[in-house]
């Protein structure tokens, strides 16, 4: 009997790329359910559209590049990109927003650079940043969370779907009746307008730390993050460094001027801080590789996020912070290589 020749070591690999991507999707599931509970079924519609667009784009470009579509589509990375993009965009947008975001993320940010593993920038954040800059009006259509005492008109799932597909609201409603500023927006505009942070925080949209509803989604995102840490999909360096990068300046400035600067708890539980720390900045492809590099990378994202939120033009800064630090990764990697065992 003849045997096949194979290189050593012959042991089975422990992990696989599809398994890693699947675990990321599992980790996002609880937060997704909470998202649907608080902000309606628009999330599901967006997720379906974004996933379909991402898979089709990936398949089409793999075909153009003459790669095996079955093998590459099976890795699940396009679905992770679509899911992260869906978390980033408002749940109440016309259908072409998730399509544009997905196509930009997969075609421009990922496949044009050479596909999985070759992209310099986080694909979901490129898609989101392009959407935010190109369609600022649609990207502010956030609905308030489902809470008994917040006064607003809630759309039914059917009305939400109709808006997604046709871009039309029921005739008796206006956009202003349906959407609300996000907590981050309120704080930013309020503080700019001279209001005290503690007074703004008294509003009905605010809970213990961040926005109501948002806090719960962020709790579950942190839970998913701990699952990823436990499973070894991500390591602690980037989340810890990024959270420190947000919390340290916000704590110091909040202690100095409690009315001019938002509290660290608010920063932690608002916007994309936790999603960024556990799911976006930890993208291995576009992030730093060494441990020291990851601390610098994560810390940079945290500081930039805080700076953009506090002094920049956008209410949240995670996407831009991640993209800026992505650009710094080759430099960080070059100067943070660990000492090789046995060398000076």
């Amino acid at each position, binding site marked *: 009997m003849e045997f096949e020749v194979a290189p*050593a070591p012959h*042991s*089975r690999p422990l992990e*696989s790329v599809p398994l890693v991507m699947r675990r990321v999707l599992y980790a996002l599931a609880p937060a997704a359910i909470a998202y649907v509970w608080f902000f309606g079924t628009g999330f599901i519609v967006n997720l379906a559209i974004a996933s379909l667009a991402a898979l089709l784009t990936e398949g089409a470009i793999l075909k153009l590049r003459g790669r095996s579509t079955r093998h590459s589509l099976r890795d699940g990375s396009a679905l992770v990109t679509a899911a992260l993009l869906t978390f980033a965009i408002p749940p109440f947008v016309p259908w072409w927003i998730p399509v544009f975001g997905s196509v930009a993320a997969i075609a421009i940010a990922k496949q044009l650079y050479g596909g*999985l593993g*070759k992209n310099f920038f986080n694909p979901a954040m490129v898609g989101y940043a392009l959407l935010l800059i190109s369609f600022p009006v649609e990207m502010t259509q956030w609905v308030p969370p489902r809470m008994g005492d917040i006064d607003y008109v809630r759309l039914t799932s059917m009305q939400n779907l109709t808006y997604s597909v046709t871009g039309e609201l029921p005739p008796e409603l206006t956009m202003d009746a349906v959407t609300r500023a996000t907590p981050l927006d309120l704080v930013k505009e309020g503080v700019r307008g001279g209001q005290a942070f503690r007074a703004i925080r008294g509003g009905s949209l605010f809970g213990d730390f961040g926005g109501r509803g948002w806090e719960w989604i962020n709790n579950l995102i942190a839970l998913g993050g701990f699952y990823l840490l436990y499973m070894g999909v991500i390591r602690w360096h980037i989340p810890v460094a990024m959270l420190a990068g947000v919390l340290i300046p916000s704590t110091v400035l909040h202690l100095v001027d409690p009315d001019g600067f938002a509290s660290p708890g608010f920063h932690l539980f608002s916007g994309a801080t936790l999603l960024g720390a556990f799911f976006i900045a930890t993208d291995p492809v576009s992030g730093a*590789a060494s441990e020291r590099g990851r601390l610098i990378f994560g810390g940079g994202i945290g500081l930039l996020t805080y700076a953009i939120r506090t002094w920049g033009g956008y209410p949240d800064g995670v996407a831009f912070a991640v993209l800026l630090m992505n650009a710094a990764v080759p430099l960080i990697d070059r100067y943070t290589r660990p000492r*090789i065992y046995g060398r000076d």
Partner: protein
Amino acid sequence: MLWNPSDDIPVTKGTNCIIAATLDEVRADYTEWPCIRCGACANVCPARLQPQELLIAARARDFAALDALGLMECIECGCCDVVCPSHIPLTEIFRRAKTAYRAHVRNVELSAESEQRHLRREERRRAEAEQTKQLQEQLKGGIEAAVERARRRRERGGDTD
């Protein structure tokens, strides 16, 4: 290996080891995904190398980078292979890269050596040419002196000696 191993081949004193594994103990297929730079390999590397960067340098045959990244410090333990989620045969790639690296280093040494040899030869030839020229000039000087002596003898007239 030059032949496909089969159970007809005897165990000789040159045989290093025999692995008796069932099919589910060994790797079933060798399809791979692209490297996603997850760093799992760097995490387990006992030599504290960065296999994800070595991989790029090895595939690009960038020997300067391989040297800087410490390819030759790789002890081929195979840990990176086992943890790689992309199923890239890293150890095998590094083993081949080491062979290529050694060949490259040897080629560099050989070419440096032959350059030196060439330079030495040039130097030698130049010196030889110089020497020949000097000798020729000496000879020429001797001949001219002899001709001169003969001419003077004729001028003094007739048969001396």
